[in-house]
């Protein structure tokens, strides 16, 4: 990692699904640079390409053309397993539908990425506990997701993303399933993590209120970036 390299650098990213008549151009040459410590909100109508862009950022999807550099490393040159390693060590995910493992306690859910990091029982448990404490749920560690409210489940999911000490948390409509009070709590938590843990946050949302928590707003339209403005100085 060189100090000069931005954390995330997309240049000319194009994503085409299908071919011929059925061809869908989800991304049409996206250029985006995100520096460490930013809190970026991505907005746009459905079908604007923001979710595809998130999948590319999360190394879950590979672009058809263009380059993606993560901390200066060309992600395009990595194979499936190397991308998994990148996700494991540098990225954390928060999804709209929480995506917790059912019939598995909150603590075990948070431990999941740590298992793949190769951490052993005791250390793993401790890190997971710490992550649950940061989201204020240490008292619910042994509850199954089905015993937790939506807001609590999302906080467990954030703890899971946090446990691996990632550089970036990618949140895809994290408040999409929550009422406004719980939504604000989640946004406050993400802001708190951005400030105190120095974690870069990239969040897709279609709610202006939620986007206002971010320091930078990127707008997608028809597969391209149509707007990119700093709304607040990064903390």
């Amino acid at each position, binding site marked *: 990692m060189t100090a000069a390299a931005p954390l995330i650098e997309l240049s000319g990213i194009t994503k085409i699904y299908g071919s011929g008549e059925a061809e869908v151009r989800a991304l049409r040459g996206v250029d985006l640079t995100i520096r460490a410590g930013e809190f970026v909100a991505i907005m746009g109508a459905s079908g604007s390409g923001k979710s595809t862009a998130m*999948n590319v950022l*999360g190394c*879950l*999807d590979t672009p058809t053309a263009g380059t993606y550099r993560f901390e200066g490393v060309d992600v395009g040159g990595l194979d*499936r*397993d190397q991308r*998994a*390693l990148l*996700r*494991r*060590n540098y*990225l954390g*995910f928060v*999804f709209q539908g929480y*995506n*917790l*493992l059912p*019939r598995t306690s909150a603590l075990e859910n948070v431990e*999941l*990425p740590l*298992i*793949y*990091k*190769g951490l052993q029982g005791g250390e793993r448990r401790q890190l997971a506990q710490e992550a649950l404490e940061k989201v204020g749920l240490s008292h619910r560690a042994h509850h199954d997701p089905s015993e937790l409210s939506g807001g609590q489940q999302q906080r467990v999911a954030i703890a*899971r993303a946090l446990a*691996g000490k990632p550089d970036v948390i990618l949140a895809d409509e994290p408040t999409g399933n929550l009422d406004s009070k719980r939504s604000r709590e989640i946004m406050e938590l993400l802001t708190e993590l951005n400030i105190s843990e120095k974690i870069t946050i990239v969040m897709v949302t279609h709610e202006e209120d939620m986007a206002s928590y971010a320091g930078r707003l990127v707008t997608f339209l028809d597969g391209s970036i149509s707007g990119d403005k700093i709304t607040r100085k990064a903390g």
Partner: protein
Amino acid sequence: MLWETVRLAVQAIFRNTLRSFLTVLGIVIGVAAVIAMVTVGQGSQQQVTADVESLGTNTLMVMPGQGGMQSGGFTADRAFTRADAEAMEEELSSVEIAAPYSMTSIAAVYGNENHFTQLAGADKSLMLAMEWKMSLGRPFTDVEEKAGRPVCVIGETIRQELFGNIDPVGETLRLKNLACEIVGVLDAKGVTSFGEDQDDLVAIPLKTFQRRIAGNDDVSLIYTTVRDGVSTERAMREIEVLLRERRRITSGEEDDFSIMDMKQFATILSGITAVLTGLLSSVAAVSLLVGGIGIMNIMLVSVTERTREIGIRLAVGAQAGQVLLQFLVEAIVLSLLGGALGIILGLALAALAANLMSIPFTPDASIVFLAFAFSAAVGVVFGYFPARRAARMDPIEALRHQ
């Protein structure tokens, strides 16, 4: 990491205990069937060998014809005479006892009771050669044998069937139109492994049999014991030469009688048992295959059901190999559990069967080990395909799966 994977697999299996149990039922039944078949097969093989050895391995059965042993010994072939047996005993140094006897099926009647049984015409020589003991009364006397008196000894089954609590000695048993006095009861010998009740018989002196039942001087079998230290092969050669001469068979003509070595008989019988065991076990092994397919089926369902879980694991950084290993280990643990249950069930069944069939219970460590290894192999083979499918999933698709 591997230990962790095994722990996770066990957790996943016990998260849905009933389904896991139903999944492995095929393996359980397959392994149990193989274990039970092989164990019972080996037990009965031992029993057959023991049975035949109890007849004495140094004994030969001489019978008319070339067809081997026939029921009752009656064949179209020329029978023997008492003189043949006497000549064998007197002229051949290799022969210790040559006991002539004949057999037929007959209804034994006592009062209003009757019982269909085997009737042997045999003298004390046969009882000696076959090591028959008396539990009640006495064997025939020389006088009774020479004169062909109407006396008989009965087996334990006959005593139970016809007499119950009455002491049969001194009672009169009717065999066709022959009324004979019971002088003794034979010691119980039990049922052989081929299901033959050795105590279901009545014996009368050979001469009585010839005169009053058969109506001729024929002897249908000669039970021969070989003198200690003499090879059965030598005895067989000598008997063949003597009988050919006595039956005036010219050189070039084939024997019209056969001599069966009981040891050979034992070998043949245990051979048959082994073939049967193998056959039944391979049929049982097919059910293992079916069980394996059952595991694959459920694992495929499980992979589909857990698509989202796979997506989550991939998102948090699981590599394809780790997902593959997870599902593969789950399949292996599942089939090993099935194998273990099957082994326990199979051994229990075999023990029960051995008890009912009164054969020795002979669990064999190597077959148990083999069954266990086989169930692991079933897990690997039939778990691989679903596991690979899981490992190749596209994380985005998987996460989107409802």
